[in-house]
């Protein structure tokens, strides 16, 4: 009997979360922006996954090192090279696929780091207040006024040899303040909310308040910010590569654009100029749209509207 009851309760608890996710999903799905964004992202995800295939078919499809033995200059699309080849006879399509992988890698990992850092620091500052808050926020202010691209550019020039992970790390280091400011503001406002008082009256300790009560309310926001940070990380990496300060050993879309630009194929190789830029723009767009859609899912006003009545 008791066991049965316990099972029922567990089930009820599970279905509660299922329902909540289902509801979020419903709201999300209603949003055309979200639908388009997600579809595009899935497409890019597939591209990233598929990037492993061409080099397996033929080593000449290796995006960085594979050259078509019969082609010595950039050629247009053909059956053999769907999007043509670059100036050395490398397959543009294979590069494009590899670029998707790099974009995800850079975007997601930089954004993740920035958001984790920003959330942790923002919550610390907001919850602790006082000197900690002041110091952290002054630091954030200072970093925030730096144009990230130019900073990373300068560091790249100074320290030479940037590999893709150092770039990711630097983007993360310079993009956290925005997140932490928002998280801090949110933490501050949460701290003022009566339910925190209610938890304190219930006897909750500081860690419990932080992790059980504040964090779940901050995380969606952090997650939302992550999608926006992903776009900025991808764009910064691409711009860096475009300017020639990227990781020379990585085929990213920005790098592809740089090759087409620097090797003088801009005017005759549309097939080479268009795809990488389009991909960067579209992936940015899709993360952006995803973020906007999530914003609406998270927007409490909206939730209250649907729950009212």
């Amino acid at each position, binding site marked *: 009997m008791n066991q049965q009851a316990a099972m029922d309760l567990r089930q009820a608890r599970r279905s509660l979360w299922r329902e909540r996710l289902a509801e979020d999903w419903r709201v999300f799905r209603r949003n055309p922006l979200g639908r388009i964004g997600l579809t595009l992202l899935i497409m890019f995800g597939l591209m990233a996954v598929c990037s492993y295939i061409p080099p397996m078919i033929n080593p000449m499809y290796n995006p960085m090192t594979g050259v078509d033995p019969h082609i010595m200059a950039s050629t247009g699309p053909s059956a053999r090279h769907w999007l043509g080849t670059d100036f050395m006879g490398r397959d543009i399509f294979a590069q494009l696929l590899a670029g998707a992988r790099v974009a995800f890698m850079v975007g997601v990992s930089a954004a993740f780091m920035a958001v984790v850092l920003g959330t942790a620091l923002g919550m610390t500052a907001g919850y602790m207040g006082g000197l900690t808050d002041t110091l952290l926020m002054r630091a954030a202010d200072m970093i925030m*006024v730096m*144009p990230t691209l130019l900073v990373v550019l300068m560091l790249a020039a100074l320290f030479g040899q940037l590999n893709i992970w150092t770039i990711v790390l630097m983007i993360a280091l310079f993009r956290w303040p925005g997140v932490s400011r928002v998280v801090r503001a949110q933490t501050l406002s949460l701290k003022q909310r009566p339910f925190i008082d209610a938890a304190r009256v219930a006897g909750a300790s500081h860690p419990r308040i932080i992790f059980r009560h504040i964090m779940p309310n901050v995380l969606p926001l952090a997650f939302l910010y992550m999608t926006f940070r992903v776009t900025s990380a991808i764009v910064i990496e691409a711009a860096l590569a*475009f300017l020639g300060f990227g990781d020379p050993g990585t085929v990213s879309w920005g790098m592809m654009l740089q090759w087409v630009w620097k090797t003088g194929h801009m005017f005759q190789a549309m097939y080479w100029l268009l795809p990488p830029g389009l991909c960067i723009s579209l992936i940015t767009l899709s993360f952006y749209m995803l973020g906007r859609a999530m914003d609406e899912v998270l927007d409490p006003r909206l939730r209250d509207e649907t729950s009212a009545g």
Partner: protein
Amino acid sequence: MKRFIIKRMAQVVVVLFLILTVLFVLFRLAPGDPVERMVDPNLTLEEAEHLVEQLGLKEPILTQYGIYLKNFAMGHFGHSFHYGQPVAEVIWEKLPNTILLFTTAVILAALVGVSWGKIAAWSKGKWKDLAFTVAALVTHTLFLPWLALLLVWFFGYRLEWFPITGMMSEEVWLDPDTAWWQKAWDVGYHMMLPLLTLFLIHFGSYLLVMRSSMLDTLKEDYIVTARAKGLSEKAIRNRHAAPNAMLPVVTSVGLSLAFSINGGALTETVFSWPGIGRELVFAVSHNDYPLAQACFLLIATVVLFSNVVVDVLYAYLDPRIRY
């Protein structure tokens, strides 16, 4: 108000000092010295050593730091390794160009973005809103260098309408008879493409921010009041909704300034617009540290001061805030 401004300025100075120090440390931490990177077989080892010494790179670090701070305080930003000229002069030559391009673009984008954002929010759900929003979303997320290259390709190469580089035609400037307006026209003509690039990228973000801020504002009660007062739609939109909706836009402009400067540098680089952004990229790739340092500092200063200006502007626009 005055006290607030003074206090903010003091903050800016402190932050600048920090940035200055960080820059110094970074440049000293960086491996190698600038001479080392001059790969010229004509430069013998002996000569290189002598040059390093002459450039003052062999002094003790603290001495260098002291000299560096003193010079900055006195407005000497050193000499560019590359041009041999005082950095200030180099920057002084390029700064007006950047200001011309960047501010024109940002102001135009802000005007268009804000007014279209206003209209889009006002006609939410209608085709106008859809068209504006989609246009903004697309242009806002376009990869700037790519957009620039496409514009170069289309307007410069295909249509041959606009020059794709530089900021003036030498004929115009060599001819002693050209009137000032011809020169202005010439610069404007050269500015078309970079301006268009920056404009497109920025207007989207202004539009989106304005639109969502306006949508928030439209939910406010005083808008209902304005309606109830029987005001015309235009009056409600322009007198009540827009001024309130502008507030978040102003803040977001201030906050995104650092980010748009990235775009400015990229645009200048692609279009060889002789401005600060391009100069910074150039200096960085030519290891011209004094120049890079000064350009960066200038940019940081501009951003910091603009943030102060934004704060003040905000207070001006929002009577609830009184410093």
